């Protein structure tokens, strides 16, 4: 069985993180699993976690009346789910639902927010990584809006 510490150290998201910060992170981490169809996050609810997906697939959804749930994107193994825990007012802006059995490491965002307030180096290291996630997701969304498959 892999230890949480080992998983976090080897995860590309935490590459280059200082040893003492990784130790802090391990204290805020726990293993979690979601069955197919289970909601992981609900739009509007308080955002106090983020997740490192180890296995499975997750749909980011919103709901439109008379249209039902609309999938905005999907995430899979190795992806990071959830950034609202770090951005005020710390409320989820989308639903996230496991499409299949999904295993993840849940990171306690409330605990990390507190630690980041007292250790700005940790806060900066986390913000740098989440900014990269946001930029990648924004770029992918722009390509989706472009309709890149048209006119061939």
């Amino acid at each position: 069985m892999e230890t949480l510490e080992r998983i976090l150290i080897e995860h590309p998201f935490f590459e280059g993180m200082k040893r003492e910060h990784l130790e802090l992170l391990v204290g805020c981490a726990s293993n979690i699993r979601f069955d197919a169809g289970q909601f992981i996050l609900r739009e509007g609810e308080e955002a106090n976690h983020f997740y490192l997906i180890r296995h499975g697939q997750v749909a980011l959804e919103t709901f439109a009346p008379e249209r039902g749930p609309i999938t905005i994107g999907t995430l899979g193994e190795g992806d990071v789910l959830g950034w609202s825990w770090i951005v005020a007012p710390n409320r989820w802006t989308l639903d996230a639902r496991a499409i299949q059995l999904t295993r993840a490491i849940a990171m306690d965002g409330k605990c990390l927010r507190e630690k980041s307030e007292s250790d700005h180096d940790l806060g900066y290291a986390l913000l740098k990584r989440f900014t990269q996630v946001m930029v990648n997701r924004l770029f992918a969304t722009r390509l989706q809006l472009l309709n890149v498959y048209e006119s061939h």
Partner: protein
Amino acid sequence: MSTNLTEVPSIVPPSLDPMLPRPYRVQQLRQETSDTFTLELEPESGKSDFSFTPGQFNMLYAFGVGEVPISISGDPGKPATLVHTTREVGMVTRAMRELKPSDWLGVRGPFGAGWPVTDARGADVVIVAGGIGLAPLRPALYQLLAARKYYGKLVLLYGTRTPADILFRRELHQWHARFDLEVHVTVDRAMGNWRGNVGVVTTLIARAPFDPHSTVAMVCGPEVMMRFTAQELERRGVAVDNIYLSMERNMKCAVGFCGHCQFGPSFICKDGPVFRYDRIQPLLAVREI
């Protein structure tokens, strides 16, 4: 790239006039999606002497309407039937869509340079297709699967706008069921019962199972999709000289005489349509080309 106007491209057998369409009879027309269809053709004589390299195209002539370049989407190992898949976008393809079995069509070709299927032996191969770009890549996939033992990992990444736009759905299911081919499909928009990936095809590249340092990538789709796909492949570590793109321009003569498809120093019809990425990379950023 040479542009010798007096030299007939070597892909055309000297006995055939590359400007003369040969009559082919429609065997079958199959609707693939709401705006794409596949034509299966057989030669007038019933005996086919046609052979092609995956990635090549033919000029198809709807008599009395016009001629358009269309990639060959069939199996190079089954040359008796000539297969083309196209989108209904203009007058000529609209006329083709109206054809019935036993109707006639003129065929010139095959033309152009194809995918480096044989040269990729020994490497992993990643095929990245967007929309109808899967059609010119299907012959390469047939050939790769026919000689499967010569390749490392085979990965097909395919993106479309919606689930309804997915081409060759039945074959995709068959390919997906194979143990020696990894297939990932993604759509831009999904509702209801779609349980697959949602996002542009480039998002599949980061976690696709291949060794970037020993991979040949074949990419086909609209130019903007290919540009971002090539950048993502490069970011993953695939060498620029191992990435191949199939380019598209307005083609008329198909043998490098008329200049309609000039792309910098090259003609798409005779030097392409498949190009190595590093050879055309600077041109992809030129807006006027």
